[in-house]
């Protein structure tokens, strides 16, 4: 159950800039409020912040490409 909560939490911080900002300001608090298990909270406190920003940025870029009519799929 907690595993799917973690996936839901990740999906939100990957695509929602406000949720991500809130999380980065207080990772332990946000993860605790999401009802995650202790080891998941620790993992999020130690998250790869550089990778998170890069991934979020790539998602934004992909969305923009799609909006401009570029051919795209889940890969690119």
């Amino acid at each position: 159950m907690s595993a799917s909560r973690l996936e839901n939490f990740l999906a939100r911080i990957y695509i929602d800039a406000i949720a991500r900002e809130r999380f980065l300001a207080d990772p332990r608090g946000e993860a605790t409020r999401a009802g995650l298990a202790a080891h998941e909270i620790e993992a999020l406190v130690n998250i790869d912040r550089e990778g998170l920003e890069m991934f979020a940025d790539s998602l934004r870029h992909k969305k923009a490409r799609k909006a401009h009519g570029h051919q795209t799929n889940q890969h690119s």
Partner: protein
Amino acid sequence: MAAVAAEAVVVVEAEMNGDRVGIGWRPRLAAGILSNLDRIDIVEVIADDYFRAPRRQRHALRTLAAQVPVTLHGVSLGLASSAPVDTKRLDQMARLCSEIAPQFWSEHLAFVRGGGIEIGHLAAPPRCEATIAGALANLRRAKHVVGVAPQVENVATLIEPPGSDRDEAAWLSAIIRNSDSSLLLDLHNLHANACNFNFDPQGFLARIPVERISTLHLAGGKWIGRAGAERLLDDHLHDVPDPVYELLEVVAARAPQPLTVILERDGNFPSIEALLAQLDRARRAVVRGRERSLTRAEAAA
């Protein structure tokens, strides 16, 4: 010069012994692919593009499948999740497979949604027992609904998946060894993850069940991020880099079974000749790998 190149391709094809090299179908590449089917063994079609396609487009896909071996590649099932796979999407895949009768179908070991939120991309799940169990349950369900287990593909990631308690080789191997699925190993995804998270891709190959690899993907990407902390983005918009061909040769040397190699290109398209040249280079890498394997076997005899 062209005659020499053509002759070389014929020689390489004769040495392929069941290995196949093909390309991902994209509308912009259609004319180039259709006019070069003598140099393309197989075509990979994005299944999701046809789930809600009008009858005319599905007819065109059937016509394509009558001309060249076709595989269907899914991008939205989200099989590697602790959440159950979406039944509606699975039914759509089953219908398309039934209609097109592809050589095989494939999907990614990724999660693509959570809590009603569509990520819009393939995200690497936490590499832990829960996502292994979830992926295995989803693969059983996929096989039951579609009738055949999908080949499953490793994904590239820019972020080390939070909540992981093992590395990618251990996680991937557990899924392959405990399912009926064979592995679609994306060599650019492997290369990108190895660059981004500082591991040896050949060491990775030594730890996974290479005898379960059926298909290999080739693609290219670009470096992004601030100076000194760049990461390799698998964007399918660039040519296949040298290290990916080197990995292809290593796999061909280690895996005795027939391999299917697919070049994926999603945009920034070069000429069809430039893409065909990448297919030819892939064929040569496979042949070199097979020769290495043979030499090793002869030395051991």
